């Protein structure tokens, strides 16, 4: 890495709620779904921050709010693509956003719906350059080809339409589109979830290689814990719109401080069928974000619940260096992590690497 890591992105008190109209003609009044509830975190330049959580926990909403693909309800996003160049992304008008867009891009979950079926691959990849008027004429083609080759597409592919490609190839087209402006920051929104496991590995490795080459910073959103563990430097765990724990990847997986993280980690199946699995089975379902539980959102399902959990919202506090947790009792509890995963996952990931 050529430059000193700095805080590329700092998200403070991000909130996003969606109004829900009920009743005939919307006369039943409005309820709000709080998808993202007062979330703060930062991302260092050059790192990969994993964001995990169940479906409906607000992962995608956070990713899209940061890029202003949807408008956050409140909160601020401070973005510093280079040292000395900083933006308050949330306060910018659409026109001012034009200056920021080239620095931050997105890779989508569904490689089928994220490519316009009526545009050639060349046009799809070139679109960010064209709309931002970054390059002209043959320079566009040169850049498109360069990025496409880097994403292991070849020249003939550029003339084709997306329907000619498999899921993995389409995802590489999506990556090439995200990469073509040479951004600093990419949100990978479940970028590998829709792919076969073998293709997943291929895409994960491609993302890793590109990160080194282009000094990229990723926000890697996923629900697949082993993929997250493989690619992320740090991981944030989301529960019902709130971050419950952020820690360096290994630490989060092996010594979690939050009971929810601990339960998640215990549920990772070990690749060895003989290994004894002792998952912590949580009671009930993830509660509805329309009417979330009081205090700590996790308290109705927590096996260590105390009275104050029901009334007081726990703040995200730093318990160990770089290890934040939002639990009143993080300092007194000893929680099990994903001990099995340690050995076998490193074997597995090394296999992925070598097979590629």
């Amino acid at each position, binding site marked *: 890495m050529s430059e000193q890591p700095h805080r590329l992105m700092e998200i403070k008190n991000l909130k996003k709620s969606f109004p829900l109209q009920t009743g005939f003609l919307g006369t039943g009044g409005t309820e709000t779904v709080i998808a993202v509830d007062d979330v703060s975190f930062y991302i260092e330049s050059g790192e990969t921050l994993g964001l995990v959580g169940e479906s409906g926990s607000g992962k995608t909403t956070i990713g899209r709010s940061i890029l202003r*693909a949807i408008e956050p309800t409140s909160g601020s996003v401070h973005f510093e693509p280079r040292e000395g160049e900083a933006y308050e992304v949330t306060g910018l008008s659409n026109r001012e956003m034009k200056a920021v867009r*080239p620095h931050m891009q997105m890779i*989508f979950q569904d490689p089928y719906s994220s490519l*316009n079926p009526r545009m050639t691959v060349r046009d799809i990849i070139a679109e960010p350059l064209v*709309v931002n008027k970054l390059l002209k004429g043959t320079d566009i083609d040169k850049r498109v080809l360069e990025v496409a080759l880097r994403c*292991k597409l070849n020249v003939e592919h550029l*003339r084709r339409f997306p*329907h*000619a490609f498999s899921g993995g190839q389409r995802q590489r087209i999506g990556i090439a589109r995200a990469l073509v402006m040479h951004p600093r920051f990419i949100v990978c929104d479940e970028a590998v979830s829709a792919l076969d496991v073998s293709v997943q590995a291929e895409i994960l490795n491609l993302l890793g290689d590109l990160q080194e080459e282009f000094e990229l910073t990723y926000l890697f959103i996923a629900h697949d814990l082993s993929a997250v563990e493989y690619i992320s430097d740090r991981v944030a765990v989301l529960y019902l719109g709130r971050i419950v724990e952020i820690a360096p990847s290994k630490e989060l997986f092996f010594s979690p401080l939050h009971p929810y993280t601990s339960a998640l980690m215990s549920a990772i199946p070990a690749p060895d069928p003989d290994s004894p699995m002792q998952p912590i089975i949580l009671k009930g379902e993830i509660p509805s974000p329309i009417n979330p539980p009081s205090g700590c959102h996790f308290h109705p399902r927590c096996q260590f619940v105390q009275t104050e959990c029901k009334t007081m919202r726990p703040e995200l506090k730093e318990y160990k260096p770089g290890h934040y947790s939002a639990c009143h009792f993080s300092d007194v509890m000893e929680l099990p992590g994903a001990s099995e995963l340690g050995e076998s996952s490193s074997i597995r990931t090394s296999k992925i690497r070598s097979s590629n």
Partner: protein
Amino acid sequence: MSASSISTENMSTSAVTAKESEEALRYYSATQWQLIWWRFRHHKAALFAGTVLVVMGLCGLFASFLSPYSAVNRDKNYLLGPPQMIQFWDQKGFSLRPFTHGVTTKRNPTTLRREAKVDPDVRRYIEFFAHGDSYRFLGLFKTDIHLFGVEEGYLHLFGTDDLGRDLFSRTLFGTGTSMSIGIIGVVIAFILALFIGGVAGYAGGWIDYTIQRFTEIIRVIPVIPLYMGLAAAFPKEWTTMQVYFAMTLILGLVGWPTLARRIRGQILSLRDEDYVVAARVAGAGAPRIIGRHLLPAFTSYIIVDLVISFPYMVLSETALSFIGLGLRPPAVSWGVLLQAAQSIRTIQHAPWLFIPAIFVVVAVLAFTVLGDGVRDAADPYSVSEG
């Protein structure tokens, strides 16, 4: 990532490329319209229907050239006369040039019916590029050349009406009028629908809500009384041209809501597609998103819709003119022509006055079959994903 693994990857890719046939490559890089056309080609019925419609359209467009007479030329000796046959031989023998016999109609003094009398001694030879009534060709230059005609007397392929006007010529002129009303009506409805539906779909929120309620109000008004009310509002002294344009306007104004709803629905469903979000994240503005991503995604549906709504326009015009509220003589349209075929007397004595109805039926059927074919071919990506 090791260097060797890169080279194997590249090798396997090029091997696959080599294996891919010419045809597959052609398919992969075909545009939407090429794919639609390739699939449409296999739909023989629709292809045939399309040809029929093109021929009909051309007939209407070049009516004044193709028809032997103008729409108002009267053959006073042949009132309400039946169609004449084109012959190559008669008692006198064979002729290379097709001809018809001279005919007249006379009132039968006992039945008081007009009866056609064929004079087998008179041969009227058909000649091509004959001189006849003068007209302006496509409004460009004055000429009197018609595709065919007879030197002396008249030739009535579809017979004549009670004023002795040639029904064949009038049907061709009517085809032009009715089809152009359909086209202009559809275009007006389409422009309104595109604008109203587009605004509702893209803006969303209360704008969408208001527009939708307004559309519903328009939709619940029964169509026939509405047509009647609007048509009755035409001043009597309006010229044929003014009535004609007013008709297209009425048809357009009544026809937009369904189409507008469909466009709104399409835009609404596509607005949050990932590739539209991707374009927004890339920095594309509203005009580019609408023009490049939203509209192309459903142009095929729009075309299908237009093709299918076309016969309704034609039928509405025909129906309105038939009940006397649409175009009025001297304008000629299918509806106006069929107006003459309203009475029992006509059905009994002059069934050839129904010939324009065959055109209406054929046109509507052809549009329906064509619409069917276009719809099947319209979404080339529906089956080829993966």
